[in-house]
């Protein structure tokens, strides 16, 4: 059973625009993480937001977390062609000895 579900599945934007991706999850969590994957490669960690945080920034990334709605969003500002990738949210099930569970991802395409 997958914990996180990203929305939209695919997103195409022009360079310079902002990109927003959403993630919904089902059970209580410790933290929520966002990862990026370039085509055919492994995933790279972008940002972690703790369950008691509401917003976090890292460079051009802004992540929000709403635990009451069990949802998170990832905003990439001033997008570039190099941001073209798949983005995944990942959560744990708030239990010791559990694994990170990933959603199906959002594929972002940024045209220059």
């Amino acid at each position, binding site marked *: *059973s*997958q914990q996180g579900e990203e929305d939209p599945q695919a997103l195409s934007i022009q360079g310079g625009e902002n990109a927003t991706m959403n993630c919904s999850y089902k059970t209580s*969590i*410790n*933290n929520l*993480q966002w*990862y990026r994957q370039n085509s*055919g*490669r*492994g*995933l*790279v*960690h972008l940002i*972690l937001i703790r369950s008691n945080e509401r917003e976090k920034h890292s460079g051009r990334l802004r992540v929000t977390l709403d635990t009451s709605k069990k949802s998170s969003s990832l905003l990439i500002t001033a997008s570039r062609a190099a941001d073209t990738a798949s983005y*995944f949210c*990942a*959560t*744990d099930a*708030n239990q010791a*000895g*559990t*694994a*990170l*569970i*990933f*959603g*199906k*991802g959002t594929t972002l395409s940024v045209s220059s």
Partner: protein
Amino acid sequence: DVKVTQSSRYLVKRTGEKVFLECVQDMDHENMFWYRQDPGLGLRLIYFSYDVKMKEKGDIPEGYSVSREKKERFSLILESASTNQTSMYLCASSFRTGITEAFFGQGTRLTVV
């Protein structure tokens, strides 16, 4: 920098073969994971391990087994490879689940013919 290394980038095996996918991490992480990734299905957890010789089934363990004899190495075993196990396999490690980030290997694209 943390490094997670998967033994092969591409692998082609025949149906019925026993296949070993190896993963090594160099940061003394307690947790190690195996996922498979298929188009439209995202990453699905096969098995994970939170300590040496400990293992837990993920969402899709059927047809797979794992071995963790040493802390740095986590092996995924396909007992008898089948064509529906053709996929991208991703190994990851982390210090603490959900509290610290996970580091991924480059992936192994396995084709079973």
